[in-house]
């Protein structure tokens, strides 16, 4: 299908997108809201957006994804959506009985300028029920921004600092990762015997066990009590700058909880950094169990390093994930020559720095010359790959077109993955996650080697 992508790279300055590498804010907000226990996400806008967002999340997680919508009609977009939203708040608590309703806006409601916070203030909300909201205009940022904004809303609406002395507990903001990753992060922290609050936490919500019953509100998710208590924690750990820094900073501003920002713990280096931070903050020893895992990972990397060494790779997807993956493939001796995210990437002048700066800083000591871009699209990535072919492509499902057009082995990592199952249950973070990545990457490369091998080179042992 991508056979017609031209090889010649000409300036593109229309601002238009050909084959996006991102999607819009509300789906990120919806996903984050699912990580609150007994929460119903609510989309303030027309039915279409909500239906698309649920559909996409459903395809990725293969679990029911519930969300209500304000069901805009022409009238509401002319006169404002206040009445729709108030009716929605009433109906949602009446019919679906969540503890929390988490409203996000859409392009439409942002453009007509609905003031959601004042609508909520004047709405009739039953005792003990909560309504929170995030503004998520899709013409700004991406789904990652939306995730971050809804996580911020959890802080601004719920977090409170109730005692002058902070508790010996840590807040962990995992970013836009799968429930399998969230479970793995919890397992690591638990094994270090540290009290923690992970938020949002979609494990147990979009990877529920089969019981023969449908539960509108599964057992998982961060509870409201926990969200309130985040203001009392000793420190916040923001995993992944793009999805997690803002809510952590807001919590610091609101409740004086200092922040440590780390990379999403993909690969050995980032996982080491996570464990070191935990150890420093709580003076707890790293348990034997984790040391063994690390040792196993290094063993595997040693056993297989020659498969990877010098192989070129293209990586695309969400910025925090791509950053982690880039660091990891470098540790395997691979050469990332194209690195792209669709999410706009901050600027070099800001305190946080930019995606491109981060990647370039990692590449600099290695001397690798790479194409690095934020706010890019897959047309650009494909053009790069036409001009400088790679041995491997890593990214979300949409990479399959390029992989086919260029006949490149392809490893699916990130969001969304619409054409494979099980991925959302299994972590890519931590030492275990890194082992899994090694397996996926080496399988892709070795399968290709087998496929392409001449009869005389085809071997049993590789």
């Amino acid at each position: 299908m991508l056979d017609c992508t031209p090889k010649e790279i000409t300036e593109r300055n229309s601002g238009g997108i050909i084959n996006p590498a991102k999607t819009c804010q509300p789906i990120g907000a919806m996903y984050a809201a699912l990580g609150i226990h007994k929460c119903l996400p609510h989309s303030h806008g027309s039915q279409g957006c909500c239906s698309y967002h649920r559909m996409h999340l459903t395809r990725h997680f293969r679990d029911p994804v519930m969300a209500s919508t304000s069901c805009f009609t022409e009238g509401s977009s002319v006169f404002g959506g206040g009445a729709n939203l108030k009716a929605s708040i009433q109906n949602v608590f009446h019919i679906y009985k969540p503890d929390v309703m988490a409203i996000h806006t859409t392009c439409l409601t942002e453009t007509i300028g609905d003031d959601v916070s004042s609508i909520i203030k004047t709405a009739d909300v039953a005792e003990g029920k909560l309504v929170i909201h995030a503004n998520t205009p899709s013409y700004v940022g991406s789904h990652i921004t939306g995730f971050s904004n809804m996580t911020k809303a959890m802080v601004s609406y719920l977090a409170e600092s109730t005692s002058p002395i902070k508790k010996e507990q840590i807040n962990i903001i995992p970013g836009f990762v799968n429930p399998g990753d969230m479970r793995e992060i919890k397992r690591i922290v638990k094994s270090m015997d540290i009290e923690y609050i992970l938020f949002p936490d979609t494990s147990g919500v979009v990877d529920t066990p089969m019981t023969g019953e449908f539960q509108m509100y599964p057992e998982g998710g961060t509870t409201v009590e926990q969200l309130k208590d985040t203001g009392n924690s000793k420190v916040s750990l923001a995993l992944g700058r793009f999805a997690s820094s803002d809510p952590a900073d807001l919590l610091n501003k609101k409740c004086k909880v200092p922040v440590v920002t780390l990379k999403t713990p993909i690969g050995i280096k980032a996982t080491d950094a996570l464990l070191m931070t935990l150890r420093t903050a709580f003076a707890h020893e790293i348990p034997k169990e984790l040391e063994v895992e690390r040792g196993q990972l290094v063993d595997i990397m040693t056993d297989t390093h020659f498969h990877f060494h010098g192989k070129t790779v293209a990586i695309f997807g969400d910025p925090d994930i791509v950053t982690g993956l880039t660091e990891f493939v470098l540790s395997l001796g691979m050469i990332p020559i194209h690195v792209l995210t669709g999410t706009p990437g901050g600027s070099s002048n800001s305190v946080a720095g930019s995606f491109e700066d981060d990647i370039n800083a990692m590449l600099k000591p290695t001397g690798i010359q790479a194409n690095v871009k934020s706010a890019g699209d897959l047309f650009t990535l494909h053009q790069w790959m036409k001009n400088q072919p790679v041995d491997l492509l890593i990214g979300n499902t949409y990479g399959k077109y390029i992989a086919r057009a260029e006949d490149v082995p392809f490893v699916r990592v990130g969001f969304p993955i619409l054409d494979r199952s099980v991925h959302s249950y299994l972590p890519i973070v931590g030492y275990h996650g890194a082992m899994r990545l090694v397996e996926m990457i080496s399988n892709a490369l070795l399968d290709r080697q087998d496929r392409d091998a001449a009869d005389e080179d085809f071997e049993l042992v590789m």
Partner: protein
Amino acid sequence: MEAALDIKERNPFIATKGKQKVSLRCDADSISGCVSQRACVYCGARVVLNPVTDAAHLVHGPIGCSSYTWDIRGSLSSGDDLYRNSFSTELQEHDVIFGGEPKLSRAIDEIVAKYQPKLFFVYSTCIVGVIGDDLEAVCKRSAQKHGITIIPVQSSGFIGNKSAGYRAACDALLRLITPEQPLPRKANSVNYLGDFNLAGEAWIIRNYLTEIGVSVNSVFTGDSNFDSLREATAGSLNIMQCAGSMTYLATKMQDEFQIPYLRVSFLGMEDTADSLRKIADYFGDPAMLARAEMLIARETEATSPIIAAYRGHFNGKKAAVYVGGGFKAISLIKQFREIGIEVVLIGTQTGRPDEYDTINDLVNDGTVILDDANPAELERFMTQQGADLLVGGVKERPLAYKLGIAFIDHNHDRKHPLSGYIGAVNFAKEVYSTLCSPVWNYIYDWGGENRG
């Protein structure tokens, strides 16, 4: 979810056959705060137009609308595949404030330079409707500049539901046809409306029609392209599969070009045979009718034993159906009957009053009929009615599975055709593979009782 129906406004949308005279409410706006399964105008327009294979489908709006519709239809092409790309103007805050027209024309220029398409569909999304970009004017200017056809599709999401989008798509298609003089009619030729060539279904039907001596002139819109659609007025009859999306186009073509239309269905053996006869009847050619009868006899003979074998596994099983359009729902009731399964719950997203009347005539007493159902209602009624199987779309699948109910997709996530005789076999096979899977034996109630 006992309280699901606490909401009284939903009551008129739900009926039980036999209990009361049914005049179901439908075609109405959903209620604010519902978990609605419905989509929007843009969605309706996009699904109808997307199979036009050599068109650049450019979404004028923010990125999401375009991301979510990128190649999700599964409509196959025998040639071009430009339609499988995702083009968006990706409106930014600046454009929302100052207007998105300049960006739109730049985006068109760029796509023309890169891909040289003959045809553009430019879709408006909610935001464009609100900021008031003059899509019409931009498309006209760009069309003149590049000497190609650029058709604006007025599909702002909030102006209605999916049905309004179907209409917007039909309007766009009419603009493709209208500038031409009506062409001389080709004898024994049909336009095939409302088949999107999912899993190659339009090809199956074309083969049948060719065999009985009917040529397929244009298909709306499965595996179609700029040239084939522009020749539509050469067809002497329109046959229409998906009535929900195509009735408007069919009536327009009748009024403007005097091309009559027939409603057909190729879902299930019964409907397929009926439809082939109806078409042959229309042309009034005895030889054609004879060929149709031969085809029907041959295919029925080949298909019936296979269906009968599957049927044996389905004794006493009950199905729930929740699909987009009313006409598909009607076909499904008959198709389930063919394989010996009773439909005990039936609902649609956009069914019309006459379709609900037909549904009511077809189903047995006690069947629950509902419009624009939400998941809580589906769950409640599926459980109450003891359904073993659900037919639905993407969002219903995990719901069914969580309840331990078998599921088949009758939307765009299926990989095999459900039309014609081969479709009838595929349907039975799919029902078998999900209903009779050993996996259901492993579901335990909390307490350890094996339900299987």
